[in-house]
């Protein structure tokens, strides 16, 4: 009888791979980082249309396309894992001290609605400076979240994407700092 039970469960287990659970760090990362990326796309699309410096329009377009693609990857993970896009848990609760980094509903580095509105209604060089400042701050917050998931996940696909994010955004942080300096402005953080 015991053998039958063992066999049955072994069958259950081997019938499907082991997916992260509803409250897992991987699920939390996928949901929260999708949201975080969503704002990066919002700001990048504004800058893509309105920045004066071509270098900024190029990097903004790059950010928008790449991060929108990464949102797609993370949403597909959730679907594959049988999980929904929403959680009743607070954002960042999957990260140790994650909730302490929250500001209302905003994750680390996220701009307020007013700031995005300011970017949207800005003109000329102001667009350039505001975008570089907001996106620089946004990237640092994102890298903080990426570091959080890299500490706790062993899943190869999650690690691969997280490491790509860290690489790309780290490079862009340096670039944005350089551009800000050339614009005579300073980063916010």
């Amino acid at each position: 009888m015991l053998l039958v039970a063992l066999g049955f469960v072994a069958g259950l287990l081997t019938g499907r791979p082991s997916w992260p659970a509803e409250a897992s760090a991987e699920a939390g990362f996928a949901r929260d980082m999708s949201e975080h990326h969503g704002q990066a796309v919002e700001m990048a699309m504004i800058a893509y249309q309105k920045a004066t410096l071509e270098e900024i329009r190029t990097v903004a377009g790059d950010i928008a396309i790449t991060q929108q693609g990464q949102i797609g990857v993370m949403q597909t993970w959730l679907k594959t894992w049988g999980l929904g896009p929403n959680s009743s848990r607070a954002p960042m609760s999957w990260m140790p001290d994650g909730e302490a980094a929250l500001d209302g509903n905003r994750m680390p580095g996220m701009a307020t609605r007013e700031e995005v509105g300011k970017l949207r209604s800005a003109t000329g060089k102001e667009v350039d400076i505001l975008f570089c400042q907001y996106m620089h701050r946004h990237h640092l917050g994102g890298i903080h979240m990426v570091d959080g998931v890299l500490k706790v996940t062993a899943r190869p696909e999650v690690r691969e994407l997280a490491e790509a994010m860290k690489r790309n955004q780290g490079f862009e942080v340096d670039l944005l700092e350089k551009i800000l300096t050339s614009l005579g402005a300073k980063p916010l953080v």
Partner: protein
Amino acid sequence: MSTGDVRRPSGGKLTKAVAADIRKPKDEVDEAGPRDDDANGGADSKPTSSGATSTATGSRAAGSKSAGSRATPAKATPAKATPGKRSPAKAAPAKAAPTKAAGSKAAASKTTASKTAASKTSPATEDAETAPSKTEPAKASAIKTSGAAKSGAPTRPATKARPGGRPPVKGAGGRGRRPVAPVKVHSERNWGPIALFVGAGVAAILIIGFAAIQLYRQSHQPTWQEKAAGIDGLVDYYKTDPQVVGQKEHAAGILTYKMNPPVAGNHNGRWQNCMGDVYTSEVAKEHAVHSLEHGAVWIAYRPDLPANEIETLASKVRDKEFMLMSPYPGLDKPISLQAWGYQLKVDRADDGRIDQFIDALRKNATLEPQAGCSGGITDATGKPMDLPNPPAPGS
């Protein structure tokens, strides 16, 4: 006196105390000394009834001495000082096996039992009297022997002829005794390993069962449609008006909608920005419906909603993607939530169904899973803002 003395009867009488001492505990086998027909208590091979033993002392004692030699299994007839004892005694062999099993325990607790028996003895005097034949102090020695859980085989080499001259019931050779099944010293079944095996098996099954249930649960979460269907008061227009839900063309200008606020239908080519935008003036239905198509939840509230309730709603919306809220003049209820094809009207901002609606339908109700909520209209004039002919780059 020690029981040892009893075993090797010195030939003297057993005193009451001694008999009591060595009296077998209740659960010891009654030897059913078949042979004995000690009418008066068969000092010799009578199985000892703990109860009556003491009274029968006298001759009994003598008898018991010789009985000591009898390697009869311990009798397990405690104070059964009943007249009809004899028969049961005879039947004892049948009981012998189980009682023998207890015998080892009995042996262990002999002293205690005998003490107990001793105390029973006194008050049980009358019992003893009625069943003189039953009680056999001699049995005490037999008890000892039986403690060894030997079957009828005589264990007492020190068998001595009893003063009574009766042939030992048990006899050194156990002759004449009803055959008794051999009994192991320690109970007939070793429960230790069995208990261990069963315990381990039960634990294993419980663990496996628990894991299986968890796995099953995890792979059978309710769908978002099921969650939505569980919300009391939710209107599912896929059921009540599927034709409207199926309309989703882009159209410019002011459009008319069947539901108020609208939940689906043709809509403007531009959506209302739904990146957690909290609008403080009326939003165009034509843009909002397009936002619903992208998977946003739109919270509309009657403009006279109290400020603290507006703020409660705003805390659910602000800065959260795929959410927007706006005042809606003419709303028939204080608050109305919309997702593509679904609507819920509530009276208060602290209604728990608001969070349930958002949890079930935000992003899930989308017709365009990869669409975003940024890049939309941010004005709120109540009128659609139709696209100018192609917007200049950088404008």
